């Protein structure tokens, strides 16, 4: 089973510089744990307790997983998961 996971610049230190890694799982939660086994620390950058961290965007193919099922979003073979750090800020 192979799900491609595209990794943003700031997290490539966990993947030895790779822009893209492969993982498996039937939900996003499982997929992230699967990746973490090989790229230790990666999951913690994306997950806080039971939820995805606020300032990270995770997409399943063309959709933002916030609108699907968050960590419970089902994933399957051939899917592409993309991670992008949110771009935001403010006056204070």
């Amino acid at each position, binding site marked *: 089973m192979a799900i491609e996971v595209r990794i943003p*610049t700031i997290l490539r230190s966990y993947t030895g510089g790779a822009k893209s890694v492969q993982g498996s799982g039937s939900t996003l939660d499982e997929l992230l744990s699967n990746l973490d086994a090989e790229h230790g620390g990666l999951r913690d950058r994306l997950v806080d307790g039971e939820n995805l961290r606020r300032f990270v*965007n995770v997409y399943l193919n*063309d959709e933002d997983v916030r609108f699907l099922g968050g960590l419970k979003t089902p994933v399957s073979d051939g899917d592409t998961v*993309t991670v992008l750090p*949110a771009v*935001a*800020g403010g*006056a*204070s």
Partner: protein
Amino acid sequence: MLTISRDLRAKIIEHARQDHPDEACGVIAGPAGSDRPVRFIPMQNAERSPTFYRFDSLEQLKVWREMDDRDEEPVVIYHSHTATEAYPSRTDISYAQEPQAHYVLVSTRDESETEFRSYRIVDGEVTEEPVTFTE
């Protein structure tokens, strides 16, 4: 050091003035590894707020994918402050996650003059940098 054309500077300032009093935000893409800002990409401020900005997540995906297809990266990430100085706030610093980008801040707090400054923000540390304008 940020090297940027006067034309791109003018486009950023025009965008900030247009969206004032809401914060304006956007990206300038350039060839990956070149450190040269070339392609101006104004973004929607999904917060539409005078004190906060956020790229819409789906628009961001589209823009980032396009940059990837074109072998580009975000060289400049800009936004405006509408009532405070053009200096990164605590929120700006905590959200900055593109270590290779130049974070450009403009301030539209003064009607006649727009402050334009640039910073590197890496691992929570802010360093202001000089800006060189080219033709």
